[in-house]
């Protein structure tokens, strides 16, 4: 066969035509609320999910006993009310009547028990939420495979379920369980989560195009009333600036502004009516591990470091306003926050004096130390290193480490000096206080320990009354702050942009607000 130049062009023309045809399929978008997420979820399974993106999307489809409302309060969802068991530690839950799953089946106590068992079933890869069940009687046996069901969970009737604990856990009703339809596997097979959703939430799964979007459609039988929009589309947009451009071009109705674009957005006058800015439910601190750097053993050194940080200057300069000053452990907006904590003032003179008293005048005699963190904290650690060097004469070197490696080292207590944050997965100050600074916690990464603190936390977790429990939190928090066990540092902001035609939706310290009532005009 002889192929001349003409046929070569013809081949190219045909290739071009095929190409155009292949791209032709287009998607008509009805009244769909479009919002961005930073990456693909790892999965759409309410049992095994463990990361933020999946959690954010699943929240539109699945619910637990309670939910977080837009003002950050825990309100009843699938449980209407609950009371402590008369027979021992535990709760009796009265479930909401007339709740329908996405399949049309009714939600009953059987589904609660099923969800708990799925979380614990050996080999079923129960996700991080399985840890919330550790106080339930029989959970251990189920997890080890020596029992076929959880002995401590008793179905009283369709709408009532008793859950017995080995010791009281007053936070149990607010743990983020996602109750699922116990009939779904029989109907759709083990791979059901790639095809449908099995929750009770206002939206149900439609499709997931990897790298492009996760699309949900309205669940007309939702117990809280049918949604006002036809669907939700979570657009997968990894780049901060792309998300802003898409919002400007009208391709997104609401944008979750990532850290990289926050300064720019906050400074831009065009966005000033669209901006929502709230403190993130993430407790931030500068850890000083006393086991690894001898001078940290001296409380005066820890105090000097704490007051050598100019927090308002950081918020303004380093973060361009996309941050808030934090004076303790518990973040504003979190139940258990103490609004009366005194401001930690920047006091370089006193800091210098304290260092001299501790035997390190002008930093003399201090061994060198690294301040370590990940790429994302590079600016912060550079600021700290410079500040401690300038104010205290401390020989601090900046060290940037790969994230997973850094997390492992922090968990192992191998990092002496680092800023980090801890993001709340449920709405009670205990999330911070009992995990970050409680002695036995594996996430006590700075390894600060205090027996009185630990006792107060243990006691608080048995007190159901919010006000009384919060008083114990405040006492414990004060012990930590008075000992300068760590230095609170500015906390980041959650920033969202909302188009004027979007109603009843917001972004909260905990992430996306409730999707049930969102409207687009």
């Amino acid at each position, binding site marked *: 066969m002889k192929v001349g130049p003409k046929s070569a062009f013809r081949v190219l023309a045909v290739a*071009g035509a095929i190409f155009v045809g292949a791209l032709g399929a287009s998607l008509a978008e009805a009244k769909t609320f479009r919002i961005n997420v930073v990456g693909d979820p790892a999965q759409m399974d309410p049992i095994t999910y463990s990361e933020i993106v999946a959690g954010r999307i699943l929240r539109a489809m699945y619910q637990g006993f309670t939910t977080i409302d837009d003002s950050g309060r825990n309100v009843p969802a699938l449980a209407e009310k609950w009371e402590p068991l008369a027979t021992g530690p535990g709760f009796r839950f009265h479930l909401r009547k007339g709740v329908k799953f996405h399949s049309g089946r009714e939600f009953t106590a059987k589904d609660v028990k099923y969800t708990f068992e799925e979380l614990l079933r050996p080999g079923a*890869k129960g996700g991080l939420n399985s840890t919330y069940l550790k106080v339930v009687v029989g959970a251990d046996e189920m997890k080890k495979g020596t029992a076929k069901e959880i002995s401590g969970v008793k179905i009283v009737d369709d709408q009532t379920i008793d859950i017995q604990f080995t010791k009281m856990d007053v936070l149990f009703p607010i743990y983020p369980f996602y109750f699922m339809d116990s009939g779904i596997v029989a109907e759709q097979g083990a791979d059901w989560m790639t095809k449908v959703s099995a929750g009770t939430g206002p939206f149900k799964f439609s499709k997931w195009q990897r790298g492009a979007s996760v699309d949900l459609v309205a669940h007309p039988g939702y117990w809280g009333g049918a949604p006002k929009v036809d669907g939700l589309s979570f657009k997968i947009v990894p780049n901060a600036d792309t998300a802003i451009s898409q919002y400007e071009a009208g391709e997104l109705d609401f944008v979750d502004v990532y850290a990289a674009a926050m300064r720019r957005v906050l400074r831009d006058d065009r966005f000033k009516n669209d901006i929502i800015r709230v403190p993130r439910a993430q407790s931030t601190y500068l850890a000083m591990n006393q086991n690894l750097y001898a001078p940290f053993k001296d409380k005066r050194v820890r105090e000097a470091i704490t007051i050598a940080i100019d927090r308002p200057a950081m918020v303004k300069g380093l973060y361009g306003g996309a941050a808030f000053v934090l004076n303790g452990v518990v973040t504003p907006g979190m139940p258990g926050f103490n609004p009366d904590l005194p401001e930690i003032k920047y006091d370089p003179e006193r800091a210098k004096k304290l260092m001299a008293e501790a035997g390190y005048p002008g930093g003399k005699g201090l061994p060198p130390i690294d301040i370590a963190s990940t790429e994302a904290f590079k600016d912060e650690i550079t600021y700290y290193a410079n500040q401690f060097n300038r104010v205290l004469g401390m020989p601090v070197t900046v060290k940037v480490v790969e*994230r*997973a*490696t850094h997390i492992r080292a922090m968990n192992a207590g191998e990092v002496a000096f680092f800023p980090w944050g*801890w993001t709340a997965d449920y709405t009670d100050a205990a999330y911070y206080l009992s995990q970050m600074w409680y002695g036995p916690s594996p996430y006590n990464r700075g390894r600060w320990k205090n027996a009185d603190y630990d006792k107060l936390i243990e006691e608080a977790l048995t007190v159901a009354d919010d006000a009384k429990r919060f008083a114990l939190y405040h006492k414990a928090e004060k012990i930590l702050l008075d000992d300068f066990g760590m230095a609170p540092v500015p906390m980041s902001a959650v920033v969202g942009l909302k188009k004027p035609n979007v109603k009843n939706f917001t972004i909260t310290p905990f992430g996306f607000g409730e999707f049930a009532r969102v409207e687009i005009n």
Partner: protein
Amino acid sequence: MFRYFLRRLAGLTPVLGAAIVVTFLAIRALPGDPVGVMLSDHSADVAMATRLRAEYGLDRPLPEQFLRYVWDIFTGNFGLSFRYVHRPVWEVLRDSLLISPLLALGALALALPIGVLLGVQAALHRNTMRDTAIIVSLVAGLSIPNFGIATFLVYLFSVKMNLLPVAGWGQFKQAILPIVVLALPSAAYIARLTRTFMLEVLQQDFIRTARAKGLAERLVVYRHALGNTLVPLSTSAGIMFGGLLSNTVVVETIFNIPGLGRLAIDSIFARDYPVAMAVVILFVLFYALINLAVDLFYALIDPRVRQEIAA
């Protein structure tokens, strides 16, 4: 000819084998641990970490992991993705597979006619203002990095004029800007090549003969002269297609397109070893096949090459 094809195809095996070994070792040499990335801030959950490690075979010695991986390739599923829970790598790749070659092909289809046309014009009007103007724009097209052009075009056509989407994939109009951005440097490159080839061919005796026998200038230029530049041009187009394919990594990231290039980046950041390796191996395969196709195409259009192969 067919035997030549088979021989070349067999020649790909050591290339792919080497690619598998190198990517396997290179990706595992990266700092970071996939289970750590999976658990992120909760990696102190030792029981969970141990279980995941066993499930994905990461607790086995490296040689065993390698053999398992090779076995997974031969059984066709490339193993399980680390990032997408319980999904075979093949399923993760499937939707992205055609996107990058499609973008590259579209860019080539756009770049070729534009480039050839500009090149011919420059050659015909050699050393005039028109030639200079074309050359200056070519240098600009080649020197401005594609992310710069992309940002400018997005700002102009999407944000300001609201004519085209900023990013995404699934609609035809979402492919326009990415293809244009990909095509521009290639068009400039083709134009420069065409100009050089044309200038050379136009000096040849057979062109003088064509003109002497009174052929219309249009035929002289477009049939005789241009026809002869297509042989070297097709070789360059093949190589360029390979280059376009690797440029899709950048363009897919800018325009948020779920193609193989972005998947490669995402999977490396997520320490999703099986997916990252599969993407690299696929890219190697694409390159090898393109080179093969170019050689075959060359043989098809040039009788001299055909004779060489036969001999």
